[in-house]
């Protein structure tokens, strides 16, 4: 089971106007991985996620999930198959409570959203409280999500993504806008999800200490193309990466 | 089917289309720039028609009475448009769409009743001057000579708007505002002034259109209701914010109406709605619009 391919991307291309946002990207993921994609702003990381999850239509190339061709599927079908994502800008239901936010994802996962007759507050209580506990949001359960702090909103975003019970999880800058401590807590949670629940996770991140601290494999995107791939150590010493990426940081 | 009848019907459709263009161009401009759909546009158009009647009534002895009245009515509506913008519209720039729609819809009711209070319920008729009262003959086919006036005004406004948008600095700013209001305000241009200007321009054209419409037949309460929906159809077909689209959409709607009157009189409006619905479903941004604001 360990080395089973969960995600396979072949020659993925996407252009916006004249700009090639993703150009012949090839990418493989093995079940159980915790990996990161890095690259300067505009490298095409978000576009990559958007193509994999059906948010944008692919120009050319293929996406396979567990051997199944899911290229250009509608987002809700991809989600139901077991791929979930958290967005870069926290994408929650501001005028529902934290509890209702998470419950919504769980109800959708349990295929109960077409139920017209049973009050929603009688359903999925256990699952919702468990997930809130996991995400460390229990004490804010009755708060309107729009009133949460920035860090809690990101965590809620993560909890909603987990509510879909994915096998493969994409996290777009999961710690953006968090304090040092929050960042640490969140990444520890991500690592736990990966190790204890066996979730395959791919994330992007700006903070290099986070990337090198948690990801076991790194892929570097630059101007829409993969320029390097390997263990954090490989990537750190790669000449081209030094030039286009770390050079820019310095 | 007689060719001369077809041509006569074509000209009638063209004149109808041009009238729709005059209304829809302002509607489309206001929506394109301000993102506000003005339900009251045709009601103000009707105010233009009534104003024209009043001016004509005062001036009817003079030779140029009607033409002066049309100009005065257009100016009067520009002033009314300015007042409405400053008092009402400006307050809802940053509101949600339903609230903006409701406000302009409430204006339909208010202005409609104000018309009734001012001009009463009986129909008003303007006696046309001799120049445009009889038929004129195009290849021996008799046509209503006033159609020519409507078509000429429509074409002039189309050209005038095009020149304004393409050749003047203010026009460039307005076109930029259609694409991004952030950009325009980043350039240091006060957005409310552009909005007010655009709204006044739109209502001015509507007033002009109403005044031009006044001598076509009788001026009746409730005329605005039928026309506003058709103007929406025009704008949807052509694409919001596109001048060319509005022109093409107007002619399509005008001609569809004119010819279905000939072949299937009950179905004229039904046909227009079906065309509109099809366009909305396959191409919500219209024939000439750009897919941005959905």
């Amino acid at each position: 089971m360990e080395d089973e391919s969960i995600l396979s991307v072949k020659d993925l291309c996407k252009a916006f106007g004249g700009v090639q946002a993703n150009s012949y990207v090839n990418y493989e993921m093995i079940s159980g991985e915790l990996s990161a994609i890095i690259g300067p702003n505009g490298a095409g990381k978000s576009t990559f996620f958007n193509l994999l999850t059906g948010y944008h239509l692919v120009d050319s190339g293929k996406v396979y999930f567990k051997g199944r061709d899911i290229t250009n599927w509608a987002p809700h079908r991809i989600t139901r198959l077991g791929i979930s994502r958290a967005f870069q800008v926290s994408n929650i239901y501001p005028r529902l409570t934290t509890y209702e936010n998470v419950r919504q994802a769980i109800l959708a996962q349990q295929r109960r959203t077409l139920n017209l007759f049973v009050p929603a507050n009688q359903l999925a209580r256990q699952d919702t409280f468990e997930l809130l506990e996991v995400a460390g949001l229990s004490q804010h359960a009755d708060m309107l999500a729009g009133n949460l702090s920035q860090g809690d909103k990101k965590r809620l975003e993560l909890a909603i993504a987990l509510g879909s019970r994915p096998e493969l999880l994409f996290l777009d800058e999961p710690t953006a806008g968090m304090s040092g401590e929050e960042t640490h807590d969140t990444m520890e949670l991500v690592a736990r999800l990966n190790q204890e629940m066996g979730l395959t996770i791919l994330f992007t991140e700006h903070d290099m200490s986070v990337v090198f601290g948690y990801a076991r494999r790194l892929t570097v995107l630059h101007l829409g193309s993969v320029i390097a791939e390997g263990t954090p150590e490989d990537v750190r010493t790669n000449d081209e990466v030094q030039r286009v990426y770390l050079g820019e940081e310095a | 089917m007689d060719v001369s009848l077809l041509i006569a019907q074509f000209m009638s459709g063209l004149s109808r289309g041009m009238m729709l263009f005059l209304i829809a161009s302002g509607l489309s401009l206001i929506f394109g720039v301000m993102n506000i759909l003005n339900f009251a546009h045709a009601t103000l158009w009707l105010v233009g028609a009534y104003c024209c009647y009043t001016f004509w009534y005062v001036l009817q002895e003079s030779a140029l009475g009607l033409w002066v009245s049309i100009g005065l009515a257009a100016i009067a509506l520009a002033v009314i448009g300015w007042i409405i913008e400053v008092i009402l519209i400006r307050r809802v720039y940053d509101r949600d769409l339903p609230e903006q729609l409701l406000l302009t819809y409430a204006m339909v009711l208010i202005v409609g009743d104000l018309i009734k209070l001012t001009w009463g319920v009986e129909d008003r008729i303007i006696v046309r001057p001799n120049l445009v009262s009889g038929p004129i003959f195009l290849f021996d086919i008799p046509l209503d000579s006033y159609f020519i006036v409507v078509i000429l005004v429509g074409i002039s406004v189309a050209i005038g708007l095009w020149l304004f948008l393409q050749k003047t600095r203010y026009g460039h700013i307005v076109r930029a505002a259609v694409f991004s209001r952030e950009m325009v305000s980043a350039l240091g241009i006060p957005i409310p002034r552009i909005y007010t200007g655009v709204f006044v321009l739109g209502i001015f054209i509507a007033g002009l259109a109403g005044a031009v419409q006044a001598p076509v037949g009788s001026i009746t309460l409730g005329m605005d209701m039928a026309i506003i929906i058709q103007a929406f159809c025009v704008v949807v077909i052509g694409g919001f914010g596109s001048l060319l689209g509005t022109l093409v959409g107007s002619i399509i709607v005008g001609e569809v109406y004119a010819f279905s009157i000939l072949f299937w009189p009950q179905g004229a409006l039904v046909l227009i709605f079906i065309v509109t619905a099809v366009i909305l479903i396959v191409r919500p941004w219209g024939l000439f619009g750009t897919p941005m604001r959905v």
Partner: protein
Amino acid sequence: MKRMWWLALVFIVVLILPLITGEFWVHVLVEILILGLFAASFNMIFGYMGQLSFGHAAYYGVGAYATGLLMVKGSVPLPICLLASMIVAGLCALILGYFCVRLTGIYFAILTLAFGQLIYYIIFQWYSFTGGDDGLQGIIPPDVLLSANAYYYFTLIIVVAALIAIWRISESPFGYTMRAIRENTERTRFIGINIRRYMLINFVIAGIFAGLAGALWGPFNRSIAPDLCTWHQSGIPVFMTVIGGPFNFFGPMVGSVIYTFLMAFVTGFTEYWPLTIGLIITCVVLFMPGGVLGLCEKKIRVFRSRAPQLDPIETTEGKSSGYGG
């Protein structure tokens, strides 16, 4: 629990009211109930799904005509007529809604408006079947419902039953999915919800209840006319909901009470009702967004934790573009 007491009180008042008022006001009460149901069905699309339908009268009108035609031409019993109206209106909503839910925002509003007018013109022009401009006369309810009070209680039972159904739906997982779609369509898609299908189902349910409301109108008014489908009729539930408050379940009903009473009162001494309601709507939009109940909630904070609330939260998205410089 506090809310339960309120409801019980309101219910008792509603039960004894026709016994102490004259027939004119009983007619007004029936109108309140019917239009309140119409507005509540509209609010399933507006308040819960977040889309503005400007053609909701189409389903109301279709429901009215289904019952009217069956009663006048077929002498079908009223209960069967009501059922038939719901089915016919639901089918109409299914066919037209299939296209409407592909669009959102302004385009949704315009397409619903266009379809509404389409239905209006079909009913208006189809003289041989619908009676066209003349409408349908002689829609007489069965003998037991002939008196104003009897028809009032009959309407009350049906409207209350329908409102309970709508309430249950709004509190069900489906109802919360509608709120989710309103709050964040994109997020909802990414938790695995087929947006269009859910919007269509909601659209059809709203159409069914609008059809039921319309069906009650004919036997009450003894006649119907194509006006029931115009966009002015579509404007009525919009007004009521905005006056009452779209984010509260009772908003449309409260709006119906205010609107209908006001209309009965104002039209008593002036013909300028549109002017009056226009000014009221303008004031509500400018100074009281959230409607009467929205204002009450803000002031009193009674129904705090339940229904979706309008408390102005800083939403990160939306129209925040700076103007004025």
